[in-house]
């Protein structure tokens, strides 16, 4: 029994990172109906921003309050990643907004690969795996045979907080209303005086900064390397599709489902089958319910 509680906790930890990244996929899809395949690699870049900033921070100001250091790293990573995402959107995606949708998808694939290979070739980063310095002292608590670490608690709590915040932004603010409006009808909304370009850039920035939260949290728990964006990005993407791409609450649910798949597959099968299980799940879902768990089926207009 303890084993399952422990694994559920681990699944929540992994799942919340997936959910955070899946949100970025789903928001961009919702507003542009474009799959931003580079999002996983934007997440990867965010962990490197967090890595460099936190190493610098701890070097310069040793003995800084750990919570302050953590919050500062988080904010810098969020800001830097948002900037990167907006630059990518402006340079690579915006010229293609009127082109066939496939062009944008191919460009996104290209951008993703570019980021990966650039980080490998770029000397200060390089292909070697790295660790984020311990921003928060890792203390393990043992509650009735279940080990809970402070990092685990921080990851789950911060993710939950960010998700609630995003839900509020999208549902309660003017910006959120504009986002929902654009995803509802791209042609009428500009006529109502909504600055579409700015809202689209903002969506990219928001999605990327949420991924940066995920990236910083992920970096505290695992090693980072330039190619990790592929695997994690794909898993997050599957989460978004499972939940119903374009649907924000769906992405959160999907993230946790994929977290459970990742943690509980090795219980039944060798752990090398994880990718196989996840992608088979995606394939089966796409064949029988292409719109995911919460997505609305859309009729094609002729």
């Amino acid at each position, binding site marked *: 029994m303890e084993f399952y509680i422990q694994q559920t906790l681990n699944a929540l930890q992994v799942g919340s990172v997936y959910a955070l990244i899946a949100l970025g996929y789903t928001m961009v899809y919702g507003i542009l*109906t*474009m*799959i931003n395949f580079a999002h996983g690699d934007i997440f990867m870049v965010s962990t490197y921003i967090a890595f460099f900033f936190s190493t610098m921070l701890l070097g310069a100001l040793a003995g800084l309050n750990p919570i302050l250091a953590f919050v500062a790293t988080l904010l810098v990573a969020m800001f830097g990643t948002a900037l990167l995402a907006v630059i990518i959107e402006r340079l*690579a995606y915006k*010229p*293609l907004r009127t*082109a*066939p*949708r*496939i*062009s*944008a*998808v*191919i*460009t996104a*694939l*290209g*951008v*993703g*690969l*570019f980021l990966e*290979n*650039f980080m*490998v*070739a770029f000397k200060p980063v390089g292909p070697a795996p790295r660790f984020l310095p311990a921003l928060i002292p890792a203390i393990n608590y043992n509650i009735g045979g279940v080990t809970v670490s402070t990092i685990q608690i921080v990851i789950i709590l911060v993710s939950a907080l960010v998700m609630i915040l995003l839900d509020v932004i999208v549902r309660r603010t003017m910006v959120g209303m504009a986002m929902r409006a654009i995803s509802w009808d791209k042609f009428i909304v500009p006529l109502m005086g909504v600055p579409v370009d700015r809202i689209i850039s903002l969506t990219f920035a928001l999605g990327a900064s949420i991924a940066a939260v995920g990236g910083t949290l992920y970096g505290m728990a695992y090693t980072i390397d330039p190619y990790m964006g*592929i695997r994690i990005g*794909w898993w997050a*993407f599957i989460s978004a*599709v499972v939940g119903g791409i374009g649907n924000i609450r769906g992405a959160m649910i999907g993230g946790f489902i994929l977290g459970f798949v990742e943690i509980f597959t090795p219980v039944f099968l*060798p752990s*090398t*089958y994880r*990718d*196989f299980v996840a*992608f*088979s799940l*995606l*394939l089966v879902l*796409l*064949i029988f319910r*292409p719109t995911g768990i919460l997505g609305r089926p859309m009729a*094609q207009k*002729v």
Partner: protein
Amino acid sequence: MNRVFWNRWGLILILLLIFPLTILLPRFGIINPYIDLVLKYIGINIILTVSLNLVNGYMGEFSVGHAGFMAIGAYVASLLTVWLFPRAAGPFLFPVALLAGGVAAGIAGLGIAFPSFRTRGDYLAIVTLAFNMIIKSVLENLDAIGGPRGFMGMEKLTTLWWVYIWVIITVFLARNYVFSNFGRGVLSIREDEIASGLVSVNTRQVKVLTFVFSAFLAGIAGGLFAHELQFINPRSFTILKSTDMLVMVYLGGIGSLGGSILGATVFTVVMEGLRTVLQQIGISQEWRLVVAPLMLILLMIFRPYGIMGLREFRFLIPRKERPEALNEFRKQIHASKGGKEALT
């Protein structure tokens, strides 16, 4: 030797004259092994590009998982030549192995064709990607064929003349395919799937056949690739490989066989040339991998239809489809009385 004669036999004669060169030049060391290798890669890449162009360029569907088909072809062909065929008979049974690899890939293509009935565009892209990932994952988990360590033991059966023959077969088959009546159906799906269904194009049949044919070609290329490198592992057939194919298709031009040949050639030469250039100016080779995605992005923004987009070299168009032949046909119709009866 009049013009009609050259129109009819010129291309065939040129191709026949090149053939002995592909045997003799490497044999007598006139071209060094590196050039030989690059030429073989160009050939293999042409087959791959034509294969992907059939689906992405001509049919307008979107596959990003062709490396999966290639992997199946490579593994099946290699398993046959290493485990089943006697070593001495290897060179003679090589085409059989390649065909078997192609057929196996074609069967997998059948599996991908069915989801394409229901999903289109980006969702189909996801399906093909998932397929690519699943193939890689399965290969990594099959310990009998080496798992993640890969599979080796093939002899170097891929010679320049074999590649040459397969390229000609591929281009010939693809040309006849896209210029056939059936091929018109493929093009009509690209323009508008629902409208083509309304003018009684059997869209399902067209999709299945095109996917199977395309996968078959990718499988052949995989077999050639495996017997050139003499070592394959699942990591050779990831999304990176699929992206290379996409770059070649969109560089050369969608919906164009001449474009595929051009794209594959230019891409291979540029990537190999960069190797030397980077070495000369002393930049690490890792930057080479940055170039391909950058090329893809710039192409999509500035030249989304590629060099030859939707156009074709004259010699790749069947004689009766060439502009002057079509004009001749129109004149004949007008010359016959009324013209209208001739059409009905």
